[in-house]
């Protein structure tokens, strides 16, 4: 862009201060260059499906009834896959989550490996530390509005943490993530404390 300002607009009648001001903007536009076109994948902010926490929570609490045997099996699977490591795969999607006490989180999902294991990185801030011994949080996927598939368990000491898991479930844009809170005596998988936004 070699064009001068007076080729683009009429400067006649403008005082020196205004000319100088517009010249400054002109110079900055030239220096900045064109803004890039956003690719379709970035058309919307991460986690575009807004669902109010309260209604989801009521729905989930009303309907949650997972058999203990299935729960135990799933939980075991979650722990096993939670410890496998992965490199730095291409990010497929990033999902935003929010929950009680202004906790906010994101789930970064990478490309699955050839066996169908999806690497995920979960980062949370503002989640309260659980006071009871043997308490922990579970990151889960929902099915029909219920937390069904565990992805991994974690603890939070100072409100924030980042954990990595791999999960064997197919992840799509419409996958709904939740975090539940487990403690001794609480029926698995525990109450939902965070949901996808």
């Amino acid at each position, binding site marked *: 862009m070699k064009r001068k300002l007076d080729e683009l607009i009429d400067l006649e009648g403008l005082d020196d201060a205004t000319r100088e001001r517009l010249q*400054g903007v002109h110079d900055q536009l030239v220096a900045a260059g064109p803004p890039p076109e956003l690719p379709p994948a970035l058309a919307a902010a*991460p986690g575009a499906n807004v669902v109010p926490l309260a209604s989801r929570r009521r729905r989930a609490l009303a309907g949650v009834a997972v058999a203990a045997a299935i729960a135990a099996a799933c939980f075991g699977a979650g722990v096993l896959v939670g410890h496998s490591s992965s490199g730095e795969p291409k990010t497929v999607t990033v999902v935003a989550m929010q929950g009680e006490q202004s906790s906010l989180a994101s789930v970064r999902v990478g490309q699955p490996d050839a066996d169908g294991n999806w690497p995920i990185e979960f980062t949370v801030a503002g989640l309260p530390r659980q006071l009871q011994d043997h308490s922990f949080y579970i990151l889960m996927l929902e099915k029909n509005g219920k937390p069904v598939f565990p992805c991994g368990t974690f603890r939070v000491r100072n409100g924030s943490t980042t954990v990595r898991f791999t999960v064997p479930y197919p992840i799509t844009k419409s996958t709904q993530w939740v975090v539940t809170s487990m403690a001794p005596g609480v029926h698995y998988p525990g109450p939902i404390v965070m949901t996808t936004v």
Partner: protein
Amino acid sequence: MEAALAPPRIAPVCSDGELIVLTGSGDRSAFEKLYKRYARSVFGLALRRLGDRGRAEEAVQETFASVWRSASTYRPERGPGAPWLYGVARNAIVDRSRARHEPPAEAPDEPSGDSGPDERAEQAWTSWRVHRALEALPEREREVVALAYWSDLSQSEIADKLGIPLGTVKTRTRSALTHLAKILEGELR
């Protein structure tokens, strides 16, 4: 009796700082407004730094995930929103570039004519501010600026393309520059 003319209703525009504060309290619509304002600026910054559209896309996603998580740490009294967002974006982009463990580029034998780190940083910041300001322009002004600055069309050709008189193209361009000046001077609240 003649009815009094009502003043035009102007939708209140939240500053970047206000939107970050709202995002920090879990306000999804504030987050989406921030995204709309800044997605292109972040993408541009990431493209400039990473040189790869795929990785730049990832950096944009990570930037906004990070904004979502850390917005509650933003303190308006410490400074306006745009530099805070710029810092978050820059960190996400740097993380992305480190994540690939790419071998360092071979050192050239001759001094490069490319700009140095300070100059590049300044260019990146200028682009960030200008691209952000462009997002705040009315569509018809943004369109004429894009054509005037980043197409090879003359003002007369732009007038033909848009089907408006040449004088309108010039007036609109001047109006856009005036708006941009106002945004860039009063921006970054």
